[in-house]
């Protein structure tokens, strides 16, 4: 039987506010345990929540970024359950009236086509603390620093049909939130976490199969692997005549498998009701319009502009707009050198290669965008040739010069275009290579093209790479042919 995979994602994004969603405690990562848990975060008797305006603004910005409806009124509810990392015994969330209504996110499939994934809604809620399972005499330690950090939970429709689409969607969300600057998107630190709903159904069937929810899949790679495993598990189960159970599963990256979480011995009953300590949040149109007017250009718009205005391929435009930092760097290079295609080639080629080799982020590149632009300009105006350019880049990367021109000067890489000088070097090479000249002369004319490479190499070597290769080629051919 042919199976179709159906995937929906719940993505939790920690918003990059300075203080918590309902208190004035810091949200900074990595502080000493419970040093950033204030009375409100600890759920001390008598304390009350007050909503952070930046968390609201960030949620609305996200909504605008995915072209979602922004309802005028949203309401906070309490989700009641007991857990040591949940100090008040309830999580303040938005069950019935979320701050962001339906919207959509574009993803680019491998064949370059664009698919729209619908977002059901996004709502604000508070993060929980952390349980640390190191052994404290058989006890668990609870750190509530993270409790109360604002989260935006983004709930997709079950619109994804493969692990790759799910990963692309997650990357698209990542790129939107980082473009907007509403989250650092750092998955390793838990700033972005993901629950995956997976089901399979026979191709052509309308109704969805029973789904499993895989909790806390916290990297792009794990999303793909967890889904791949889960899909295979479900298909195998169904083909053996079994049934998929609706349940929560955990992905174990070490074993590359998902496992049932059996700890929930009974169905939860969260007893949602409107939080009486918070009032309805009312957003007037002027406020939403103001945020809309000040929205930065988002990845989808940027990609379209790179294609339309710069004539870049869909692929190049996609890569260069994937992150705000990449796009900004690219545009600065482009402005410095004046040629989008050259800038695109260098950013995706030499620069990305070097960044990948050293595991650096583009914002930490040792070669500034303007410096790279200057280097490209020197290639374009024939000051240096392509080979020398790579040397200059490497030198700049290693911090061996302030500017491209300085490196070119210091290393004497300026391209030799003086015909007299080139002719002299060629004459010398021909004089030093009687055997090769003889071979050249004896060869069939159509084989000579290949043999000229040797002479070009020698001349370039003699010029320490500075001779203009096109010029060398032409003069060499003329001179050698004259000997035949």
């Amino acid at each position, binding site marked *: 039987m042919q199976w179709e995979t159906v995937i929906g994602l719940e993505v939790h994004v920690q918003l990059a506010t300075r203080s918590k969603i309902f208190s004035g405690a810091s949200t900074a990562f990595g502080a000493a345990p419970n040093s950033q848990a204030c*009375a409100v975060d*600890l*759920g*001390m*008797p*008598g*304390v*009350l*929540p*007050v*909503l952070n305006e930046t968390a609201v603004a960030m949620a609305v910005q996200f909504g605008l970024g995915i072209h979602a409806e922004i309802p005028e009124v949203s309401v906070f509810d*309490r989700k*009641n359950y*007991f857990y*040591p990392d949940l*100090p*008040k*015994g*309830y999580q303040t969330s938005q069950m019935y009236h979320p701050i962001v209504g339906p919207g959509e996110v574009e993803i680019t499939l491998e064949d370059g086509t664009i698919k729209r994934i619908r977002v059901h809604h996004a709502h604000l809620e508070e993060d929980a603390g952390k349980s640390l399972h190191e052994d404290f005499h058989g006890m668990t330690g*609870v750190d509530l620093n993270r409790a109360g950090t604002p989260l935006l939970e983004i709930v997709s429709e079950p619109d994804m049909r493969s692990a790759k689409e799910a990963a692309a969607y997650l990357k698209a969300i990542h790129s939107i939130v980082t473009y907007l600057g509403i989250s650092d998107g750092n998955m390793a630190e838990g700033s972005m976490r993901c629950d995956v709903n997976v089901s399979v159904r026979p191709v052509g069937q309308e109704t969805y199969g029973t789904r499993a929810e895989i909790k806390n899949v916290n990297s792009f790679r794990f999303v793909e692997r967890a889904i791949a495993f889960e899909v295979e598990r479900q298909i195998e189960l169904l083909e053996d005549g079994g049934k998929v159970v609706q349940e929560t599963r955990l992905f174990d990256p070490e074993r590359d498998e998902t496992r049932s979480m059996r700890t929930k011995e009974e169905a939860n*009953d969260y*007893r*949602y*009701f409107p939080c*009486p*300590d*918070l*009032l309805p949040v009312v957003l007037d149109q002027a406020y939403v319009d103001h945020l809309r007017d000040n929205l930065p250009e988002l990845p989808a718009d940027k990609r379209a502009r790179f294609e339309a205005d710069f004539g870049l391929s869909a692929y190049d435009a996609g890569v260069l707009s994937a992150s705000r930092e990449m796009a900004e760097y690219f545009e600065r290079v482009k402005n410095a050198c004046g040629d989008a295609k050259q800038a695109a080639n260098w950013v995706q080629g030499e620069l990305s290669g070097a960044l990948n080799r050293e595991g650096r982020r583009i914002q930490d590149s040792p070669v500034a965008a303007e410096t790279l632009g200057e280097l490209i300009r020197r290639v374009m105006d024939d000051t240096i040739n392509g080979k020398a350019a790579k040397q200059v880049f490497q030198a700049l990367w290693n911090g061996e010069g302030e500017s491209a021109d300085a490196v070119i000067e210091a290393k004497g890489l300026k391209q030799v275009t003086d015909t007299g000088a080139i002719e002299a070097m060629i004459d010398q090479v021909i004089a030093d290579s009687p055997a090769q000249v003889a071979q050249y002369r004896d060869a069939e004319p159509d084989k000579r093209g290949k043999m000229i490479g040797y002479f070009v190499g020698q001349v370039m070597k003699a010029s320490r790479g500075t001779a203009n290769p096109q010029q060398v080629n032409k003069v060499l051919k003329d001179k050698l042919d004259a000997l035949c």
Partner: protein
Amino acid sequence: MHDKTLTELAAGLQAGEFSSRELTQALLARIKRLDGELNSLITVTPEQALESADNADAARARGDAARLNGLPLAIKDLFCTEGVKTSAGSRMLDNFIAPFDATVVEKLKAAGTVSLGKTNLDEFAMGSSNENSFYGPVKNPWDTGAVPGGSSGGSAAAVAAGLVPAAMGTDTGGSIRQPAAFCGITGLKPTYGRVSRYGIIAYASSLDQAGPMARTAEDCAHLLGAIAGHDLRDSTSVARGVPDYTAELGAPLTGLKIGLPKEYFGDGLDPEVESAVREAVKVYESLGATVREVSLPHTHYAIPAYYVIAPAEASSNLSRYDGVRFGHRCDNPADLIDLYKRSRAEGFGEEVKRRILIGTHTLSEGFFDAYYKKAQQVRRLIRQDFLDAFEEVDVLMGPTSPTPAFDLGANKDPVSMYLQDIYTIAVNLAGIPGISVPAGFVGKRPAEGRPIGLQILGTHFAESRLLNVAHQFQQATDWHRRRPAIAEEAR
């Protein structure tokens, strides 16, 4: 000094007749002598009190006296007080020393008041008789065989017995007004949102409101002025200026339109209470007010609606008492579930458990619409009843409670206890202000009788008007000046 009003004491301090230290010492001595029997205070803080009194005296000497400089009072043990045990009348918080002050406590300190201690209450403010306290019941100073009312029973009893001239209470369904009525003092529940709830241990968040309890409306006006106002830490507190609540106390009542809700004079109302209230209304007529009957048609739905909404909110508000970060923790928990279940079973008393169970049940899947949503709809109808009535009249009047204080231990059935709050509970659902003033006694001789309270209600933020109406009554009558025998004997 102990039978003076706050206003009279302020004048005495101002005139240098006595110092705050002398006043504080006198009252601390009285507490020592009398409170063993009354049990109105859970914690007495003599050192802190004397230090505050000295600071107040020093400030006055510098010419830097705050608005309530050097005036002693007590605070219901539901308000967090930094460095002082804050128990909520519960075993759960018997070991809880609050690490911060409630906003009301901060404001009272800033106003120069001197706190003598924390008053007894029904556990987590759940009750109408003060019999639900981990620290034992409070006795009514008028008759130690009677309850003082609840949940602010300790505050009411302490004021009535002359242990303090004023105390802070909270009112979720009548918890200031009913004990004020039972103890023959004046108690004001302000409009919801008028006084910050920050640092007040929550019972039912959409109903809780703090207010003053004192001998006179005038004293309440001074206290309300000190504690009211917008608080950035309480989202439900209202950003609205605080008027001088004493400014209109003296305004004549000529032309005042009084409404008597016919539902407040029906079955179950003690005839002596009814006649005292009707006498009081006659006093108002003599002061130039006009009286008409009005109807609050949804009155009888108030108690059912309240016993859905309040326990639901409470069940969630009290989830934080889990034995992890503060409060009672059971010995040697076997596992996490055991920690939760035993700590909470041991920490909470019977009435609290009852309300947690009711609230948990009515919020459960399948019941939410039938109970919680329905109760909220009824809540709107109840509020509308009041808004409609206030289109026709300025204030509503009626009894605070259908009976005077009942005997300790007399009311065993929870439902019949709940029904006692018939005249006070709707006020919290609607969020309007209400005040209870002494209006007579049930019993042959006042000194042996049990006090009766007249309840006066106004529309949202009509506190100035209520205080004016109450004050004028107290200018024309002397019920508020009567003192229980216990207070007289102790002289």
